[in-house]
C-alpha cells in the first residue's frame, strides 16, 4: 500500500515535470535572479565610487593596450624569473655549504665514532640524507622567492589581466586564458602549477592545463639547463659571447616548451578531451593594494612548504635507491653498472647514454638530483677519480671540472643538446605525478600526463640524434 503510494507520487511528479517542459528550470533561475536584482536596486545604496573606478580604468587601459600590454607582460615575467634564478643563488649556496659541506661530513664523522656499520652509514647518510639535503638546498630558495612574488601579482589583480590578454592565443589551441598563469606558475614548480589549475573552472580546459603543465621548465630543471648550456653550448663561441650564447640556448628551450604546450593543448582538445565539458568566463577583479605580509605568509605556508614537504618525502627513498644500486653487486658489477650497460644501446639511439637514462629513472622523485646522480654514475662507470665514492652524489664548484668529467664519460655537443631537450620533455617528477592524481582523482589522466611527455622526449631526441648524425 505504502510503496504503491510512493510509486504513484513519483510517477505523478515525473508526469508533471514532463508537462512543465524544459524551460521551467531556466525560467525559475532567471526569475529569482531578476527579482534579487530588483530588490538590490531598491534597497542598496552605493556611494559614488567614480574616483576609484577611474584609476582602475586607467591602469586597465595601459595593461590591456595593444602597444604596452604584451611588452609589459614579458618584462614582468622576465624580472620575476631573473629575481628567482639569480636571487636564489646566494641562499642556495649558503644552504648547500651548511647541509652538504658541513653537516654531511659531521654526520659521517659522528657515525664512525659510534661505530656504525659502513652499509648503514652509507644507506642513511650518503643515500637518504644527501638526497633530502640536496633537494632542500636547491629547491627551497627559488620557491621561497618565486611564489611570494607571484602571489603578490595575483593579489594585486594583475594576473587575471594577463589571462585576459592572452586568452585568444590559448583559445586557438582549445585552452583557457588562465592557463597562461598556471603555465607561469609551472616555471616555479609544476606541482604548484597543477594545484593552481583550480582557478580554471571548465573541466576540459583544466585537464589540458594539468597535462601540459610539465612543459614549463620548473626550477628543478633550470639549473640543469644552465649548467649544460654553459659547458657545451657556450663553448661554441668566443669566450666573450659564451654567456649570452648559453642564455639564448636556455631561453630557447623554455620557449620550445611553450610551443609544445600549445601543440599538445591543441591535440588534446581535438582528440581525447573533446568530450569533456567546456565553459568559459573570466572575472577581472578590481585592483587592490596587495596585503603584503599576509601574502608572503600564505604563499610560503600554502605553496612553498607543502611542495617542499612532498618533495622531501619522495626524495628520501630516491636517495636510498641511488645508494643501493651503486653498492649492491650482482656478479662483478653493481646494479647501476648493469642498468647503465643494458640501457646504453637505447640511450645511444636517442643521442643520450645509459648513465643519463638511469639517472632519470632513479631521479624521478626530484629533477634537482639529476646532475649530481649523472656525475656520480659517470665517475662510477668510467673509473676516473672524483667525487666521494659509489652512491655518493656530488657536484663540483668548478664548471670546467664538471665538463671534464662529462666529456670523459663520452659526452658530445649532441649529448648536451639532447639532455637539455630530454630534461624539458620527460615524465613529471613523482611529486607532480602525485599532485596530478590528487587533483584529477583519475588514474587515466595521471597516466596520460606522465607518459605522454616521455614518449615525446624519446621521439624528439631520437629525431635530433638521427638528423645530427646524418649531417655530421
Amino acid at each position, binding site marked *: 500500500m505504502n510503496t504503491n503510494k510512493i510509486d504513484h507520487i513519483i510517477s505523478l511528479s*515525473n508526469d508533471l*515535470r*514532463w508537462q512543465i*517542459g*524544459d524551460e521551467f*528550470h*531556466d525560467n525559475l*533561475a*532567471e526569475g529569482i*535572479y*531578476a527579482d534579487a*536584482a*530588483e530588490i538590490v536596486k531598491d534597497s542598496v545604496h*552605493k556611494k559614488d565610487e567614480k574616483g576609484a573606478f577611474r584609476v582602475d580604468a586607467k591602469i*586597465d587601459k595601459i595593461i*590591456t*593596450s*595593444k602597444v604596452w*600590454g*604584451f611588452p609589459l607582460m614579458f618584462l614582468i615575467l622576465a624580472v620575476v624569473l631573473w629575481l628567482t634564478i639569480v636571487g636564489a643563488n646566494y641562499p642556495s649556496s649558503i644552504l648547500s655549504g651548511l647541509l652538504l659541506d658541513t653537516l654531511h661530513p659531521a654526520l659521517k664523522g659522528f657515525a664512525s665514532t659510534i661505530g656504525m656499520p659502513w652499509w648503514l652509514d652509507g644507506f642513511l647518510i650518503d643515500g637518504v640524507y644527501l638526497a633530502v639535503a640536496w633537494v632542500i638546498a636547491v629547491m627551497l630558495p627559488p620557491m621561497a622567492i618565486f611564489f611570494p612574488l607571484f602571489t603578490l601579482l595575483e593579489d594585486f589583480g594583475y594576473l587575471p589581466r594577463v589571462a*585576459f*590578454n*592572452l*586568452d*585568444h*592565443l590559448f*583559445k586557438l589551441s582549445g585552452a583557457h*586564458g588562465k592557463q597562461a598563469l598556471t603555465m607561469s606558475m609551472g616555471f616555479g614548480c609544476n606541482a604548484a602549477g597543477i594545484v593552481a589549475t583550480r582557478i580554471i*573552472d*571548465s*573541466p*576540459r580546459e583544466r585537464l589540458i592545463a594539468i597535462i601540459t603543465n610539465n612543459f614549463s621548465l620548473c626550477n628543478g630543471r633550470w639549473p640543469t639547463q644552465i649548467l649544460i648550456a654553459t659547458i657545451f653550448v657556450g663553448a661554441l663561441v668566443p669566450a666573450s659571447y659564451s654567456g649570452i650564447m648559453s642564455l639564448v640556448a636556455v631561453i630557447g628551450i623554455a620557449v620550445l616548451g611553450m610551443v609544445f604546450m600549445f601543440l599538445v593543448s591543441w591535440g588534446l582538445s581535438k*582528440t581525447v*578531451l*573533446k*568530450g*569533456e*565539458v*567546456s*565553459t*568559459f*568566463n*573570466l*572575472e*577581472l*577583479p*578590481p585592483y587592490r593594494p596587495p596585503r603584503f605580509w599576509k601574502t608572503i605568509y600564505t604563499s610560503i605556508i600554502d605553496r612553498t612548504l607543502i611542495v617542499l614537504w612532498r618533495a622531501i618525502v619522495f626524495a628520501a627513498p630516491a636517495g636510498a635507491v641511488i645508494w643501493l644500486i651503486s653498492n649492491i653487486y650482482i656478479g662483478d658489477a653493481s646494479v647501476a653498472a648493469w642498468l647503465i650497460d643494458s640501457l646504453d*644501446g637505447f640511450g*645511444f*639511439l636517442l643521442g643520450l647514454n645509459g648513465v643519463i637514462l638511469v639517472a632519470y629513472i632513479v631521479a624521478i622523485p626530484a629533477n634537482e638530483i639529476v646532475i649530481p646522480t649523472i656525475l656520480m654514475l659517470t665517475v662510477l662507470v668510467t673509473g676516473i677519480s672524483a667525487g666521494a665514492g659509489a652512491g655518493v652524489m656530488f657536484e663540483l664548484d668548478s664548471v670546467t671540472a664538471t665538463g671534464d668529467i662529462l666529456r670523459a664519460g663520452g659526452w658530445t655537443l649532441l649529448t648536451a643538446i639532447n639532455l637539455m631537450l630530454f630534461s624539458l620533455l620527460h615524465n613529471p617528477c613523482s611529486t607532480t605525478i602525485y599532485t596530478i592524481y590528487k587533483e584529477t582523482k583519475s588514474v587515466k589522466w595521471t597516466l596520460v600526463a606522465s607518459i605522454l611527455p616521455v614518449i615525446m622526449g624519446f621521439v624528439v631526441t*631520437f*629525431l635530433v*640524434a*638521427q*638528423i645530427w*648524425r*646524418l649531417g655530421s
Partner: protein
Amino acid sequence: MNTYNPITALAVFFALSILAYLLFRPNKGWFWLIRNNSVSNDKIVVEDVLKLLYHNENGDKHLNINDIIRTLKYNDRLILECINKMSDHELIGIKGDSVKLTKSGSDYALRIVRAHRLWEKFLAEKTGFKEAEWHERAERMEHELSKVDTDILASQLGNPQFDPHGDPIPTNTGKIAKVKGIPVSELPIGTIGRIVHIKDKPEIIYKQILAENIHIGSVIRIMEKTSARIEFHSEGEAFVLAPIMAGNITVSVLEKDVVFEENLARLSILKENETAKIIGISKEIRGDSRRRLLDLGFVKGAEVKIDLLNPLGDPKAFLIKGTSIALRQNQASKILIQKD
C-alpha cells in the same frame, strides 16, 4: 652498434609512425573500423529497420523491402535475413511487397527513438562534444542503452520533453509532445515566429545551418522570399538562406500582437560606450555554461556595457552588476540584448 645507420633508424621510425597513424587515426583508422564491424550485428540492423519504418510511417510514407535495402547501408542479405526474423517475431507485417510496423514493432521503435534523443540531450547538457557530432554518437549509443538505462538517463536529465534539435522525446509510456510549426520556406513575408526545430538530417545541410549561427529559440521575421532565396531578420542580423536549408528549419508562428523587437541584438555586436539591457540567454548555451552565466549575473533585465577591449580582439570584458566579466565572442553572440 656495428649495424647502426641513422637512415635505417629513421626509416624504421617512419614506417612505425605511418602504421600507427593508419591504425589509430580518428574515425577511419583500421583499428576502429575493425572494432566497429565486429559489433555490427543483427540487433543493430533490426533496430535500424524499425527506426526507418517508424520515421517514414510518421510522415505517412510506406516502404517496401527494396526501399529498406536501398536506404540502409548494410549487406543486402543481412537485411533480408533480419526482415524475415522480424516478421517471425511479429515486429513487422509484410503484405505483398509493402512492410508495416505492428503495435509491438512500433513500441520497440519508439524506445530506440527515445534512447537516441535522450542521448543527444545528454551530449548537449553534460559533455563538450560539438553539435555536429551529436547525431552520429547517438546513432551508435541508441543500440547500447537498455530500457532501464534509458529510464535512469531520463530521470537524471529531468525527463526532458525535447531533444536539442527540438524533436520531442517519447516518454517511457510512449507519450510524445506535439511540435506545431511550419517550415521557414513556407511562411509568407512579414510573418514573425520562433524557431522550434532544426532538422539534423541530412548532415550537410545541418552543418551549413549551424555554420550560419542560427539557433533554436530565436525569434525571426521573414523579410523577403523568392524561389532562390529567403531572407529573414533575427536578433539584429539578417540571414539569407536557400529554400532547401529554410525547409529544414521549423518555426512556430507567433500571434500578431507580439511585438517583434527590432532593436533586439546579440551582445557580440555591442560597441564601446553603448549600454544595453539583457533580454536572455539563447537555448544554445546549455548545462554548466548556462548556469555559470546566470551565476555571474547575465540575467533578464540586467544592464550591460563594454568594460575592456582586448589587444587581440577576443574576449571582451563586459561590465555587469558592477563586475567586469570577460566573455568570448562565441558566448557573447548567444546572449540577447536590447540596446538603450
